[in-house]
């Protein structure tokens, strides 16, 4: 056993199923056949059957009315019932018996029509047939309220027991009022109404076909017509021979006629069928005018296809019997009108629309089919193109997206490098534009604009600068001077490569007066004595009159030895004379030598005054 959760269900009890069978299956097939199209032959058969059934029912109805004395009201009653069936989508098979029963019971046109309306409401509310509802009402009218009570409308037992039909009817009306209209407004109800309209059209077509067939075959009823059709087999060979002769004699006309016939058989559209009948009528009239009427009528009188309703139509046309042709013409007109009504009804119901009428539709059926095919092909082509374009666009977008990504990467990489502020600004702006950062892009664009403005001013200022001075313009004179000086230096160097004779002023012993002046802090020169006097010397080694400036280490070594010899005995206080040498050049080397000599002297045990530790 399966476990089920029902989401959406429909009540399809026994009664509901029967109703659905009527309202859906038959309806679906009928509407489908009527609107979309089925085999013309099948439809014609169905039309004949429908017409026959309706004819029978109407005959019985008329007979019933006549028996109860309401024959005069037949047409009015039928008009009333016709309006009801179109309004509520109830078929004649239900409506006529119900009305007939009510009228028979009440013997009042007004009451029966009122009760029929109530029966429709009851039927819609309780999902029963109109016939059942009318039967219950009829019985209640006659005092038998059991059936009405069994309807389950909640009628009070007191009213049912009393048998007061007026009171019962009032209660029923209160409960069921508007149910039929509401039901008719449902989808199922709308389909039912369309079905009724389609059935009416079908019956009209069938009526026209039967009438035409009977008139052509000079039959007074269907049985006689059937007999004639059955007898056709016996004369088929002769008929066919006559047909062959007629065709060969009238090949041109027959050709055009055959085209129409082919169209009638090949195009599975009711409307096309109707239009074909009209065309057939036209052709047949032409044939008649060509005095082929009698021959064709004889040959086609018992057409082998006469058993079908469609053939009946052909039969009528080909037979060239004036009445038959006219009847056929009339039937096609009525059928067209009915189909127009059908489309009109569908439009009014909001479920369809008049597509220009069946005849109009039929006229352009082939053209429309071709146009539809062309349009479908064009639509297919368009869809293919659109799809191709969409794919191409997507490819472009993907490519562009990739480029943007690369560009973004490049910008980010570039920003890592050393850039000027302006370049950084430009790159940042471009990055912001790629990333769709509007606020940042706006800010950066403003900054860039300002930067560009500044740059422009700078360029203007630079453009207005005077020509730059040549920094080397005066170099010629300077270089000449330098060269002259170099030449002098060179000459001087040549000179100093010779031993330099330096005049040495010999120290002299200060006079007594000068010594006194010195002791008193006076300048000896102020007392008229020249020379540099520092002290007095007891002994004095004779100095060389001249000595060369050291030009190399050997020379300085020589010089130092000279100086050392000069200072031999220096520091001996026995001598009061101090010798001062004024020497130009190589002072540092000389001092070093002096220092070294003093150190050596100190190391040898002499009193050292140089580099002695501080006190």
């Amino acid at each position: 056993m399966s476990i089920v959760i029902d989401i959406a269900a429909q009540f399809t009890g026994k009664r509901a199923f029967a109703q659905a069978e009527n309202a859906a299956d038959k309806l679906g097939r009928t509407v489908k056949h009527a609107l979309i199209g089925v085999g013309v032959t099948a439809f014609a058969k169905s039309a004949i059957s429908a017409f026959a059934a309706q004819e029978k029912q109407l005959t019985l109805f008329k007979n019933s009315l006549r028996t109860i004395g309401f024959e005069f009201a037949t047409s009015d009653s039928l008009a009333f019932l016709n309006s009801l069936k179109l309004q509520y989508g109830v078929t004649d098979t239900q409506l006529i018996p119900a009305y007939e029963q009510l009228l028979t019971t009440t013997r009042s046109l007004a009451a029966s029509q009122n009760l029929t309306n109530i029966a429709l409401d009851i039927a819609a509310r309780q999902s029963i047939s109109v016939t059942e509802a009318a039967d219950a009402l009829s019985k209640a009218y006659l005092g038998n309220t059991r059936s009405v009570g069994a309807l389950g409308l909640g009628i009070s037992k007191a009213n049912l027991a009393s048998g007061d039909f007026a009171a019962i009817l009032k209660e029923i009306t209160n409960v069921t009022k508007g149910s039929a209209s509401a039901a008719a407004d449902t989808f199922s109800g709308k389909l039912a109404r369309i079905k009724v309209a389609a059935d009416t059209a079908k019956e009209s077509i069938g009526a026209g076909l039967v009438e035409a067939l009977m008139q052509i075959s000079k039959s007074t009823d269907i049985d006689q017509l059937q007999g004639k059709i059955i007898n056709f087999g016996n004369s088929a060979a002769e008929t066919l021979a006559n047909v062959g002769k007629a065709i060969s004699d009238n090949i041109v006309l027959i050709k055009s006629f055959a085209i129409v016939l082919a169209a009638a058989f090949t195009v599975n559209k009711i409307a096309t069928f109707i239009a074909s009948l009209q065309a057939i009528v036209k052709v047949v009239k032409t044939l008649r005018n060509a005095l082929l009427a009698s021959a064709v009528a004889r040959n086609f009188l018992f057409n082998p296809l006469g058993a079908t309703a469609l053939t009946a139509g052909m039969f009528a046309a080909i037979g060239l019997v004036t009445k038959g042709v006219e009847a056929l013409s009339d039937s096609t007109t009525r059928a067209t009108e009915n189909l127009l009504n059908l489309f009109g009804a569908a439009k009014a119901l909001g479920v369809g629309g008049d597509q220009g009428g069946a005849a109009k539709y039929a006229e352009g059926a082939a053209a429309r089919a071709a146009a539809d095919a062309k349009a479908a092909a064009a639509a297919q082509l368009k869809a293919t193109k659109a799809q191709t374009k969409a794919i191409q666009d997507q490819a472009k977008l993907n490519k562009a997206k990739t480029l943007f990504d690369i560009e973004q990467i490049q910008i980010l990489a570039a920003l890592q490098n050393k850039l000027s502020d302006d370049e950084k600004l430009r790159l940042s702006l471009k990055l912001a534009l790629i990333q769709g950062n509007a606020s940042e892009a706006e800010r950066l664009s403003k900054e860039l604009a300002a930067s560009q403005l500044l740059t422009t001013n700078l360029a203007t200022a630079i453009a207005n600068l005077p020509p730059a001075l040549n920094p080397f313009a005066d170099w010629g004179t300077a270089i000449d001077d330098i060269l002259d000086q170099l030449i002098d230096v060179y000459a001087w160097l040549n000179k100093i490569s010779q031993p330099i004779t330096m005049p040495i002023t010999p120290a002299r012993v200060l006079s007594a007066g000068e010594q006194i002046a010195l002791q008193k802090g006076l300048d000896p020169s102020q007392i008229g004595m020249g020379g540099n006097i520092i002290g007095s010397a007891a002994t004095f080694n004779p100095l060389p009159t001249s000595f060369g400036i050291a030009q190399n280490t050997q020379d300085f070594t020589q010089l130092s030895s000279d100086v050392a010899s000069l200072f031999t005995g220096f520091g001996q206080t026995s001598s009061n004379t101090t010798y001062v040498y004024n020497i130009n050049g190589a002072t540092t080397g000389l001092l070093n030598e002096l220092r070294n000599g003093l150190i050596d002297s100190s190391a040898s045990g002499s009193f050292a005054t140089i580099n002695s530790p501080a006190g």
Partner: protein
Amino acid sequence: MPTEVKGLIELKKALKDYAPNLGEQLDTQMGIALGGVVKKAQSYVLASSPLSNWSYRKRTEFFTNAEGKKVRKFPLYNSARIVKDIQYSGTPRRANKNGFKAVYYIINKSAAGAIYETAGRKNPSGQPWVGRKGDPNDHGVSHSNNPNAGSQFIQAFGQIYQGNIESSTKRGRYMKGRLIFRAWAEDGGKANAAALTAIYNVNEQFKKKQYFGKVTK
């Protein structure tokens, strides 16, 4: 639940005949609406049997009873099969005894799945125990040697969940279950609303002029 949609069957037939594209659209929308519940219900199927000896194994599925009748054995727990057989459908079922024909429904088809779904729904402590002495054809009692077999069997399955939507045809306990009813309860009626909305929308579209216009061309 179920919601009665008058004319639904006719609508489906009409869609099939006149507007197959619209019919496909309805199927797609129903799939979206009900698919989530089905997926959720499938996710509640345990990967392995809640009872060690109930696991699926290869065996003959039928045996002949003492009366010579071919009888199906108690189904074994096959999680893959259970998952596969939890579905939604738009194919009308046979009308129930009350005359309602389910058109759209979620179904747990497998026998083992149905057992796991509903065990303990009627008898939370297991069926009344009679042991081997009872009528073997009486399936309303426990024939096990273990008087507590039913209770233990049910306890191993865990909690049973109550569907949150009252049924017009089912009483409260008939809306209890561990798989589809649990998923249905947790969905909170969203799938139901989506399904009915889809039906309504398709019906409205079908009634529009263009569809009949197409038909009449």
